[in-house]
């Protein structure tokens, strides 16, 4: 195909970022999703809104606030400096944290919808079969909500791959550190290297199509048809 070394680096970095973010989001998104699906607390509305904010907010706004917070005068920045971690903006882990916020709704909402669709009935049935809440979570909730979990992982991954604005705000353009594929394409275009932009864009287009194809083929089967992108 003729991708340059820096293209390959950008793709590799993008995959590493998306993989890391998806993994962390599945771990922290699941309890949030289950809480949102089950709670009757008044906090449900505000938390739901907070989780969904990245869906409507321009990535630059989110990126801007995160930049301030993680900067040398921001609360997060001061904390990371005290812990000896240095400042997070313009680092890979800074990108990871920004992406966690940015992709959160794409992971939380499919899981939340799946858990809501299961309802209380199978859980009560499990309880009468001597199954503790944790046991029920692993052997009833997860298998029944599996399509929701798969959708969440695919969407979280694909959406992180597709980031641009927030990366630009937080990460800038450092090769091997923060220069992801979308930034690399931007650079190609800036430098008027249209053929380079074409090649990488084609890779991204192909990837996105396959990711969505996978998603919809899962959704076609049974339960998952209830879950929509972005809730």
């Amino acid at each position, binding site marked *: 195909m003729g991708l340059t070394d820096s293209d390959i680096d950008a793709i590799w970095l993008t995959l590493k970022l998306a993989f890391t973010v998806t993994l962390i989001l599945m771990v922290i998104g699941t309890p949030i999703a289950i809480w949102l699906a089950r709670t009757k607390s008044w906090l449900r509305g505000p938390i739901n809104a907070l989780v969904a904010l990245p869906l409507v907010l321009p990535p630059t706004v989110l990126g801007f606030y995160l930049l301030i917070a993680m900067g040398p005068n921001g609360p997060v920045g001061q904390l990371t400096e005290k812990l000896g971690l240095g400042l997070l903006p313009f680092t890979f882990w800074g990108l990871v944290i920004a992406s966690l916020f940015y992709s959160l709704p794409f992971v939380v909402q499919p899981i939340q919808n799946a858990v809501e669709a299961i309802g209380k*009935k*199978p859980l*009560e*049935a*499990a*309880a*009468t*079969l*001597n*199954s*503790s*809440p944790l*046991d029920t979570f692993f*052997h*009833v909730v997860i*298998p*029944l909500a*599996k399509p929701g979990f798969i959708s969440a992982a695919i969407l979280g991954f694909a959406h992180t791959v597709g980031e641009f604005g927030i990366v630009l705000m937080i990460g800038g353009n450092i090769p091997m550190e923060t220069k992801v594929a979308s930034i690399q394409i931007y650079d190609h275009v800036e430098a008027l290297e249209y053929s380079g932009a074409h090649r990488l864009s084609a890779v991204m287009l192909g990837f996105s199509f396959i990711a969505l194809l996978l998603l919809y083929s899962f959704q076609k089967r049974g339960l998952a048809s209830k879950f929509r992108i972005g809730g």
Partner: protein
Amino acid sequence: MAKLRASAPTIHAKLAVSLESESKTFQLDIDCEFPSQGITAILGESGSGKTTLLRCIAGLESKAKGQLKLGNKIWQDENIFLPAYKREIGFVFQDARLFEHLNVKNNLQFAVKRSHEKIKKAFYEEVVSALDIASLLLHKPEQLSGGEKQRVAIARALLIKPKLLIMDEPLASLDNARKHEVLPYLAALQNMFDLPILYVSHSTDEVCKLADHVIILNNGQVALQGEINDVFAHSSLPNAYKMETSTIIHARVTEKNERWHLIKAEFGGNSLWLQDNNQTLRKLLRLRILANDVSLSLDDQKDSTILNRIEGRIAGIEIDNSSATALVTIELNQIEIVAQVTRKSVDDLFLMVGMTIWAQIKTVAILS
């Protein structure tokens, strides 16, 4: 609340719960005891609190307050609330609630793995064959009919080896044909597995077929409880069940009359002629005689078409001045049956306790 004698009262529930839904508040306030043997039916109209009572006993209503004891084991009191998964119950829901992601076999295995006692292979096979589900083991729940689902759900509940089996209208969601498919399995359960069963129903017919003990609920309170015969022969049966006032007796087939196609059923020194439905000799029958189907006369009316006429003695007359009818208890040798007659007839015939009387029994329902 009328309370009749209960044999071996080992399960005691004294519960109160107030549940709020969008439109109204429902209050359940119950004090009931039932034996740790046999089938106890909870009967009541829709909204009387039957399902709520079961859910409280199972530990599925966390708002329930009160005491619940199974034998000497406390499930709930002021300080203790055992969650559902720590109570040794099996629960059969109205809607079966099989796990959709597991096939029948794995639904059963879900219970076997979490069972209160180790499940031996022989017991597993006994349950599977008792409910006749061996051919369904590899099916997914969505491939099963309503009746099949319910049979699998019953098997699953048995495989947890509960100390108490709770069934919430297991037949309610089934059509009549399916009901008759599942009913015999329910009747057989009790004999096979020697386990107390708490059975909710709004069908008097089902209850009379299955139960030994009955609790009638009305508006979240116990209206009447006791042995099935005492309850249905009781004069204080709630209004909704007045028409169901009846005597339930056990009789044995002692003779078959081929010519008239009749069988003779003997009970407590009396006999009845019933239609021959191919019952075998010596078979024990469960019969129900509605109080409405018994009329009384002062002498034996041989010129009547009523085949079953038995001489007895009036043991009690209960008159409700607000209604047209009176409930007369007649002693037939060792058995008492009830007859519902008009107050006017009681007056016209000068019926009194101790009088000799002929009971004419128009119809007898053979329950099993």
